[in-house]
């Protein structure tokens, strides 16, 4: 498959934090959820993709090009929505669009106007006067109006009401539907990804934990619950982030066959893990 985004061994150091040896790819026509706890490195990855920061090692390709050497061409094909969209607060949304428009080779003014109407963004209102959710909607309209091939969304659903959030997810699903465009969706709200992500990339402490399809995750990760007395060495070895309560233990396993063998003949619940379960239990000490 033709990857629209490809990271190979990408490394970036900051004082007190390093993103190390991150590799994953996103084919065209799919949505990739980028998940991880605060400070995991999600925003650094987003910034690397946008060329806002430069990698110190490794290789990064966006739409087949290096975002450092082909910066303009790459950015022309990216739509970006920041967690807290920041433009010029004193300008009206329509003026912002008139600023952004000449930069993009494929800006579609009728599409922008249609999006603004659909999202109910008051184009004549100053950006700084808009609510957080409406700012995000305005940013989405700006990001979608130039027919970006890769949409990079950094926590876009924060501040959105549930109705618009649902319609946004539907729109993104339609957006990737033509097989040409893709979405990189960084978020804490894993429920959004359960609905729409084709791929999930999980980073923690600057390292890649996994990057795989949602189906693979569903086949691999399971939450196990049972009587704490069942927690012998064999069971513990197969579990991550075990929580022990007075009546039951809960843990995550990436090896369901081993846990089924270890718990054979005992009463235990083994069910598919949600993304939140995976994030939570893999982040806990064993």
């Amino acid at each position, binding site marked *: 498959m033709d990857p629209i985004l490809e990271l190979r061994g990408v490394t970036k150091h900051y004082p007190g934090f390093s993103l190390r040896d991150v590799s994953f790819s996103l084919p065209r026509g799919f949505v990739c959820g980028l998940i991880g706890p605060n400070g995991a490195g999600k925003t650094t990855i987003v910034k690397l993709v946008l060329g*806002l920061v430069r990698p110190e090692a490794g290789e990064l390709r966006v739409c087949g090009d290096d975002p450092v050497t082909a910066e*303009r061409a790459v*950015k022309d094909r990216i739509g970006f929505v920041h967690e807290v969209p*920041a*433009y010029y607060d004193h300008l009206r949304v329509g003026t912002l669009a*008139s600023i952004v428009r000449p*930069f993009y*080779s494929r800006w579609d003014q009728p599409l922008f106007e249609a999006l603004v109407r659909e999202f109910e963004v008051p184009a004549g209102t100053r950006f700084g006067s808009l609510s957080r959710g409406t700012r995000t909607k305005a940013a989405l309209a700006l990001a979608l109006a130039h027919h970006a091939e890769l949409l990079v969304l950094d926590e876009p659903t924060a501040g959105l009401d549930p109705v618009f959030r649902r319609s946004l997810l539907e729109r993104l699903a339609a957006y990737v539907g033509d097989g040409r465009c893709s979405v990189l969706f960084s978020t804490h709200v894993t429920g959004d990804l359960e609905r729409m992500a084709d791929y999930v990339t999980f980073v923690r402490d600057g390292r890649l934990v996994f990057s795989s399809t949602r189906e693979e995750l569903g086949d691999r990760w399971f939450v196990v619950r049972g009587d704490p007395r069942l927690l012998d060495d064999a069971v513990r070895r197969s579990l991550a982030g075990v929580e022990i309560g007075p009546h039951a233990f809960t843990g995550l396993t990436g090896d369901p066959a081993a846990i089924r063998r270890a718990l054979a003949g005992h009463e235990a619940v083994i069910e598919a893990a949600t993304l939140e379960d995976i994030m939570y239990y893999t982040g806990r000490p064993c």
Partner: protein
Amino acid sequence: MLNLFLKDVKAGAIFLWAVVPLNVVAALQASRSGGAFFWANLACAALILVAVSMLEWKNDAEAFVHSLPVTRAMVVRGRYLTAAAIGVLSLLVGAAVGTARALALAAQGAPWPRWVAGDMALAFVLAFAVVAAVYLPCYFRWGFGRGNIVAALILAAGIIGSALAGPAAAGHPSVTAEGTLHGGVPPGRIPQGVAALVDRLGMAAGAVIVLALAAVILAVSAQAAARAYERQEF
């Protein structure tokens, strides 16, 4: 680059309009001291350059600007173009306001003031080029906060050093030992030096030299700013 300049014009329109009232105030001041108009006009232009640069910092909009299909070098060149436009706009408004003030003074029987003249326009261009050439690399290297402080320190050091190096009026007959005269050439090395140069070589040759010098100063500064900005991350 032109799109980035237009972005600055649209985003900074509110400040660009301020050129007119600020120059009117400066022109009114100029009736008391001829030098005040020159330096107030320059300060007004510098203020607008700083204000336009402030917009991205104040709105936290650097990530937005750099998510547009632009390179860091283009952002730097765009801002130098904006600086040039601010300089030209300030010069034109200053010339218009200054001429109006001079005509009003002349109507009262006063001689045409020395501070409204072609060589002072050249001096303004050179002085603003120096200000922009110091300010913009500091802004692109250290950002708005620290960059302003560093640029202010450099410019202050330049002014103090220039004052310590000798009397500003040295060698030019139209300025007294006090350095400031109503209707005389404004004090300061740049207006004095440009006036002396034009006296010696004539307006055309003086203009060529001064404009070339301003262009070289800005070109060197833009190179330094681009190099500094290339290392910036957002």
